[in-house]
């Protein structure tokens, strides 16, 4: 840059007032068949980018991004699994001398050495040769690292049943979006006694089953609420007999199209009958 005496500037800025011709660099400086970046090469890059974007959008449209049930810290049965690009580390920590009491070795020392070596590769592989065949140690170590990463990822994927996970942990959209009658007294009883486990939409979560479209009768529901079933302990329900009846009606009607049927505790037997009709009709 030209400096010193005789320079003229625009106002009091550092922008020079003298106009220089805007000449492009001489192409003969570059060997081979060079191409101007702007606009020739950029146009080709644009095309490659467009093809790439189309493929990417097809992937996006064909596979909607997954969303599991809302996080529930009390869900003891959940088996965690990280995103695929962390699986190699996750799998590595399962081995005897990398996890457990050797966790510092497996989680810090070994990955630290591997990624530290990657970070400092130019200072470890200092020779002037660039061809892979002329620097066997660096290339060999990198191939080993890549192979180990692939193999650990493969091992981890082998043990994970993604279809099963999607089925067990995925969101039951119908349950979440079904209309539940929240105006009646049954909802309040449900909210107080059952919602913390079976969910706001009766959808269940983890080991807690969904209560939507239950095939149990009102009496069976009453019995389960008081005495438990399977892993569900007895004595969860806390309230009067009238509330128990309201609860049983509420759960009986949920998901069978009966949610909006007034929801009052009056005319119980007729509601039960109608909801059973609804179920048998929707069953076909």
């Amino acid at each position, binding site marked *: 840059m030209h400096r010193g005496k005789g320079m003229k500037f625009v106002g009091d800025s550092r922008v020079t007032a003298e106009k220089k011709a805007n000449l492009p660099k001489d192409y003969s400086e*570059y060997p*081979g068949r060079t191409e101007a*970046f702007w606009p020739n090469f950029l146009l080709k890059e644009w095309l490659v980018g467009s093809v790439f974007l189309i493929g990417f959008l097809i992937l996006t449209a064909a596979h909607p991004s997954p*969303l599991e049930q809302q996080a529930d810290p009390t869900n003891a049965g959940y088996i965690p699994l990280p*995103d695929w690009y962390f699986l190699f580390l996750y799998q590595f920590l399962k081995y005897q001398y990398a996890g457990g009491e050797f966790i510092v070795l497996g989680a810090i020392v070994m990955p630290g050495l591997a990624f530290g070596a990657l970070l400092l*590769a130019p200072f470890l592989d200092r020779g002037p040769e660039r061809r892979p065949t002329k620097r066997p140690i660096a290339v060999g170590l990198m191939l080993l690292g890549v192979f180990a990463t692939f193999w650990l990822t493969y091992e981890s994927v082998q043990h994970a049943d993604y279809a099963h996970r999607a089925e067990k942990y995925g969101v039951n*959209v119908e349950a979440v979006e079904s209309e539940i009658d929240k105006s009646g007294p049954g909802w309040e009883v449900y909210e107080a006694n059952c919602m913390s486990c079976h969910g706001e939409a009766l959808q269940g979560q983890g080991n807690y089953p969904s209560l939507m479209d239950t095939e149990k009768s009102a009496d069976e529901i009453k019995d389960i609420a008081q005495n438990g079933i399977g892993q569900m302990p007895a004595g969860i329900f806390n309230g009067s007999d009238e509330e128990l009846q309201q609860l049983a009606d509420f759960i009986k009607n949920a998901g069978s199209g009966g949610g909006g049927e007034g929801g009052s505790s009056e005319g119980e037997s007729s509601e039960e009958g109608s909801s059973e009709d609804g179920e048998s009709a929707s069953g076909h």
Partner: protein
Amino acid sequence: MLQKLYDWVDERVDITPLWRDIADHEVPEHVNPAHHFSAFVYCFGGLTFFVTVIQILSGMFLTMYYVPDIENAWKSVYYLQREVAYGQIVRGMHHWGASLVIVMLFLHTLRVFFQGAYKKPRELNWVIGVLLFFVMLGLGFTGYLLPWDNKAYFATQVGLEIAAATPVIGDGIRTLLAGDPSIVGAQTLTRFFAIHVFFLPAALFGLMAFHFILIRKQGISGPL
């Protein structure tokens, strides 16, 4: 008209040299897939940048709906996914882009490594590139928690336990990331949100700027 406008700005700001630094250069034959198809390996870096731009744009739109609080985070994502026009596409782009950017970074790193392109005088740019890789992995890790579903919650818990295994400063790192020595909860979500949306992108932009300035300064490495 446009020329006049350009001249008016150029007289005051002298933008022509800036423009020439950015765009006015020659693309050598050995990196041009039009001449040698095998040169497609040189596309990986550019495609990484392309996916990064997709991530930035889709992420900006996601924050229009996302609520970083444990009551509403999952619900806002669910709403975005089910109710918002194109919400599923935008979230899908961000979700799959996160995987794709790792794939592209991996390929780009392997290309540079096996060609020995990190050798003198390009050592610094390699170090910056590996730091970019770490920042990307950090973005992947912090972004994983934000939907606040079971997968996010329990994977984050495992990740934090691994971080806590660091000798001496482990518990400090865990508290810094999670907001509490033992609980993964409301504080963790807001912290991960802040890290994912402000801290790491700031680091990413700074490192990317360095990365690109050095490429323009040193030029692309020659043919093998």
